[in-house]
């Protein structure tokens, strides 16, 4: 979090989450991945109601409880204490992944290690020989949810692009990502490859293109650098 404050050009974590929230239609059923995606819940636009699903068995997940009100038996997929909103329901893991695999969740927002220009997502393993493989529900989500949004820094801490021609890390899913929200820009995955949707404040097309390891198409309609 320290590396991205509003003092710099580009969006911080909260702003990236807010951009994603703006694109989610009213009444959507939404699953939020661990990390920055969790912040999306704080930025539901006025007049919209989202219903949050967490794959460990809760539809109608609410915000974190007040300190001291945590219940170790009411947690989210990241194993953090949450609450249940009125109208919530609890169910077992078999039923929970019926919602995911069966195509009933409208939107899933995930983090990424790499995204390819064809929408391949890698977010579970570096493939390093000593890595402990740990996939959780990510492969189920990308295979089953109707729309996959990704929120991620545009590059790694070392400045290496995360948007690439082909993922070098093991895939979570093939051709699954629809749109990417980075600290620098919002980018669509189209049949022609990465296409800019909009730029973060103080960020230029050329900068985004330079930090993207694949061709970047300009937006179909002109986008002002805001």
């Amino acid at each position, binding site marked *: 979090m320290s590396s991205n404050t509003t003092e710099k050009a580009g969006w911080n974590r909260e702003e990236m989450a807010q951009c994603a929230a703006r694109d989610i239609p009213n009444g959507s059923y939404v699953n939020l991945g661990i990390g920055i995606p969790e912040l999306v819940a704080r930025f539901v636009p006025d007049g919209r109601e989202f219903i949050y699903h967490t794959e460990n068995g809760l539809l109608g997940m609410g915000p974190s409880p007040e300190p001291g009100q945590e219940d170790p038996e009411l947690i989210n997929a990241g194993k953090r204490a949450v609450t249940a909103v009125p109208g919530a329901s609890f169910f*077992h893991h078999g039923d929970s992944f019926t919602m995911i695999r069966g195509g009933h969740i409208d939107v899933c927002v995930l983090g990424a290690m790499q995204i390819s220009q064809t929408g391949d997502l890698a977010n579970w393993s570096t493939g390093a020989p000593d890595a402990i493989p740990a996939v959780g529900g990510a492969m189920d989500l990308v295979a089953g949810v109707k729309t996959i949004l990704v929120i991620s820094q545009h590059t790694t801490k070392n400045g290496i692009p995360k948007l690439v021609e082909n993922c070098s890390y093991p895939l979570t899913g093939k051709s699954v990502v629809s749109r990417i929200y980075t600290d620098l820009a919002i980018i669509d995955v189209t049949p022609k490859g990465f296409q800019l949707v909009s730029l973060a404040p103080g960020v230029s097309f050329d900068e985004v293109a330079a930090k993207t390891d694949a061709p970047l198409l300009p937006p179909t309609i002109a986008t002002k650098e805001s």
Partner: protein
Amino acid sequence: MIDKRIKTIASVLSDISDGATIMVGGFGEAGSPIELIHALIDNGAKELTVINNNTGNGEVGLAALIGNGQVKKMICSYPRSSHSKVFPELFRAGKIELEIVPQGTLAERIRAGGAGIPAFYTATTIGTPLSEGKEIRNIKGRDYVLEYGLVADFALIKCEEADRLGNLTYNKTARNFNPIMCTAAKVTIVQARKFVEVGDLNPEHVITPNIYVDRIVEVTTPLIESQLIEKGARYP
């Protein structure tokens, strides 16, 4: 009269022996039958295959069972933990096997095992390393991978309420894998926070019908894993 209640936790799983396959309920600490796991450590059975979403936290519960060298193989979706080095160290040392299964496929394999479905197709893992070497089949224009049902010799389950027949309810997200694991084991052993009388549970609200339950023991104030870990507790 059918009565599946057992008085002492030690005797509830005394017949688990070396080489058994055991499903352990819970997602992280929620719904984890920690007293039953500790009883299994006391029991000492080795060469176990354990099915759980994770590999435990700290040095209590499932992590302690693994740390005690009783587990030959883990079948799970997410063996990493911010609170435990037990599994990673044994895994890197080649002392424990790992079958990594996506969470939804793990859930469906358990559900299938309980439902007499030997195998099914799913799109999860298509295009990833986890479907390599597996049978892929195109159905109506989409690729799917063949996955097999999972069954176990024993399931260790945590529930909220139980009656003597074995009807169970759960508490919030502590439900998770517990109800499906009840269906997929030859012997289902349950720790209940509270025994209730037959008839106390509304038939519309029973989550695990008694047909799936073999033995129940009451643990009214179960240990809370996260609290134990904060205190640096170990088992045994």
